[in-house]
């Protein structure tokens, strides 16, 4: 097929259009501020990203970062419990928050003339949270129900927790973000308040404002509301326990009668995006696309369309991480193919790929798509805000964020193959099988006993 336009030129214009709309500054107390302008609709997304997450927890209190995120919706010295969200709703806005290993973020989406009020309230709860015993006990039950819903009820999620724990012997990425249930059950107010007081401070936060706003106006409002807040003195350096050398391949098999579709998944320890040195992460990002993204990817071409041994394959890598991350491969075998045979097929095709190298036409298509993604993403200020917030909270700079598209575009097929040869080391990998036990009923649906007639008990 004829090439319709040159991906390189296309990338450059997209980046230029986007770079013009982003401004940044830092307040005297250390708060970093990023403003992303989009004047199409009178809407603003106001986000505060704290550079602290589940991987910054002390051993024994797993889940405290996430529990604190819930408690942030309780009261302050100026707001009653629940009043924060109620106020946002009364303004027609929505608010929420999320916790990850490396960050905890709070956001509101409101009409842009409500930014002042959002900043007033968010600045208030950065330093003046007030918790009472009843609130925190009830909220702990809510968090346990959240864990039940996300993890305990889902064999795939339980399997994922076990794999992470096997991947990281020493680094806290081996603990679940939401926490182990036995530790979540016994979290206490003091655990939350000491975590809060240390880490929730302007010099450990990034403010991202995206939407129909003027950067100068944002600066004035930020100075007014966030400017007076005291930084945390002697903020601890962000150093987590690192992994010892991995000396042996790790393998786990998780069996659960609720598994209807078995699969094999392997994750290799892999470097993350480093500030000023994102080249290897760029090569791994493209490697994941080459191997596992879409109908024309290497794994799908070989295993789904070629040999027919796979129902589905994928490769994944998320380089935006504070410490070493993982590169993963997953294969759902076609009916009649065992997990052992699936793994052998995956390894066979991986070895062939390392011999054959990258298909240049496929790489062109991937780069074209990545360039267009910048145009499509500019349709959503919220996803732009997320991209900046996530990068800055994991140790990258604005320069890194803006350089990233060019670095991806400059990455060659040779770079990708070199990264592949480095990362695919079985001695840095965890291979997992998820399956039902051998003696499980043939028909998985029979696990659920549905009464024939409607039974009424209440």
């Amino acid at each position, binding site marked *: 097929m004829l090439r319709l336009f040159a991906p390189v030129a296309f990338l450059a214009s997209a980046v230029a259009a986007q770079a013009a709309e982003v401004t940044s500054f830092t307040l005297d107390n250390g708060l970093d501020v990023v403003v992303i302008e989009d004047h199409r609709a009178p809407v603003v997304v106001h986000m505060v990203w704290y550079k602290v997450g589940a991987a910054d927890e002390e051993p024994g209190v797993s889940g405290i970062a996430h529990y604190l995120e819930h408690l942030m919706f309780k009261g302050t010295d100026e*707001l009653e419990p629940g009043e924060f969200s109620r106020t946002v709703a009364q303004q027609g806005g929505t608010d929420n928050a999320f916790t990850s290993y490396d960050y905890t973020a709070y956001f509101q989406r409101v009409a842009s003339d409500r930014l002042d009020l959002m900043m*007033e309230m968010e600045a208030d709860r950065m330093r003046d949270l007030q918790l009472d015993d009843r609130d925190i006990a009830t909220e702990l039950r809510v968090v346990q129900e959240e864990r039940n819903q996300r993890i305990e009820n889902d064999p795939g999620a339980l399997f994922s927790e076990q794999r992470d724990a096997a991947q990281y012997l020493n680094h806290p990425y081996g603990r679940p973000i939401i926490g182990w249930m036995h530790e979540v059950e016994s979290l206490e107010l003091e655990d939350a308040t000491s975590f809060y007081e240390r880490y929730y401070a302007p010099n450990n936060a990034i403010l991202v404002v995206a939407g129909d706003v003027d950067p100068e106006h944002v600066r004035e409002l930020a100075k007014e509301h966030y400017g007076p807040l005291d930084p945390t003195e002697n903020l601890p350096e962000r150093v987590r326990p690192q992994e010892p050398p991995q000396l042996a391949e790790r393998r786990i098999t998780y069996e659960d009668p609720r598994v*209807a579709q078995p699969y094999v998944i392997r994750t290799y320890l892999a470097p993350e995006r480093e500030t000023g040195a994102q080249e290897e992460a760029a090569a791994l990002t493209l490697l994941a696309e080459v191997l596992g993204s879409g109908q024309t990817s290497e794994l799908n071409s070989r295993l789904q369309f070629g040999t027919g041994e796979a129902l589905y394959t994928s490769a994944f890598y998320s380089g935006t991480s504070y410490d070493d991350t993982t590169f993963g491969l997953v294969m*759902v075998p076609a009916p009649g193919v065992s997990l052992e045979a699936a793994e052998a097929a995956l390894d066979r095709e991986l070895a062939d790929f390392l011999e054959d190298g990258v298909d240049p036409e496929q790489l062109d298509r991937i780069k074209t798509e990545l360039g267009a993604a910048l145009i499509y993403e*500019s349709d959503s200020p919220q996803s732009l805000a997320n991209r900046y917030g996530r990068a800055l909270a994991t140790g990258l700079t604005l320069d890194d964020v803006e350089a990233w598209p060019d670095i991806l575009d400059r990455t060659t097929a040779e770079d990708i193959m070199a990264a592949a040869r480095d990362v695919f080391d079985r001695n840095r990998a965890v291979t997992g099988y998820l399956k039902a036990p051998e003696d499980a009923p043939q028909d998985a649906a029979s696990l*659920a006993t549905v009464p024939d007639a409607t*039974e009424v008990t209440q």
Partner: protein
Amino acid sequence: MIRTVFAAAFAVLAGPALAAVEVQEVTSPGGIDAWLVEEHSIPFTALEIRFVPGAAADRDGKRGAVNLMAGLLEEGTGDLDAQGFAAARDELAARFGYDAHDDAVSVSAQFLTENRDEAVDLLRRSIVEPAFPEDAIARVKDQVLSIIARDATDPGAIARETFDRLAFGDHPYGSPVEGTAESVTALTRDDIEQAHRDTLVKDHLYVSAVGDITPEELGTLLDDLLGDLPQSSDAPLPADAGWNLEPGVEVVDYPVPQSVILFGHEGIERDDPDFFPAYVANQIFGGAGFESRLMDEVRVQRGLTYGIGTYLAPMEYAEVVGGQANSANATAAELVDVVRGQWGRIAEGVTEEELADTKTYLTGAYPLRFDGNANIASILVGMQMDELEPEYIDTRNDLIEAVTLDDITRVAERIYRPDDLSFVIVGQPEGIDAD
């Protein structure tokens, strides 16, 4: 408590300044209607197409045919096989999505201005001239069968399937759009072509476009893209689904630590004169966000769940007022009691403060939905399916403001009937027997 600080702040805030969403009604030279919002600041266009009905048009014994057909649209056309089609689409950096629900087959597309004609032609070939090759049918069937198998062990999917089956029986609404392992296995290429002829026709079509395109360009695009589809089909329209779910509690015994709980009964039609009071009542009772009565009673006060919500679902062939929550097996019975109690209380009416707060939320939140080309296109096509006019965007908040306490009491009494309420619970809830 310094609440006055923020109370004072409210007073100075008038309604938000709204960006005008200027909808143009476009009719192509060939007679295809569409709604358009021009937005030239980003060089791409979002296009949304709906064919109605969707999977509800499945013929007797062919459940899953429309869903499988929709999944096969991108799996080959003319000289392009599945991978050839994907490569052609990726070279254009276009994004196409195909999906089937009971009420519509949806096609969503985003494409760049610089290669719009090529992208539209490729999209046309997938919609108008899909090849449905046998090898793709076999492959996609296996993928659908895998989804069916997975849903059979997923407590949320079991709950949904059970609720719908008991409520709607043999009507298409009574089963998942994917069909059963048996029905999907038996589908032939003829069945898939039949599903294509039954659903993808011009008589049953809604279109919206938002982005870097003029009305004239859109008119040409519509004829190029859809002009070659047949005008109509001879598929019989589905009948009304009725309602067969008995009041009470149905337990599906399943070994999970947390029960999945669905509840509801028959609801209210979208064109009912009392739809807006019902909509406001639902928001107060169990609507989105943290402010609803149920969220407060069940989560905030008692910690029984991570999330609980209710909805009005005015579908084409049935109406439901329903909700969902999850709770540990030990507390599921308490959650059911609280929901049942609140279901009765809402019928007694709401307070003036609840009504005022909810109106402020709903009227303030409405303009915030119109954010981004893809979002706006999706809203516009939904409005057409609801038989609304473009002017509705300007009058909708007035309809919310007009709702009175008396309206709420009248409609709540009518649509929240605790004696009719049914619960379907998947799990091992304590104190509620499965048998």
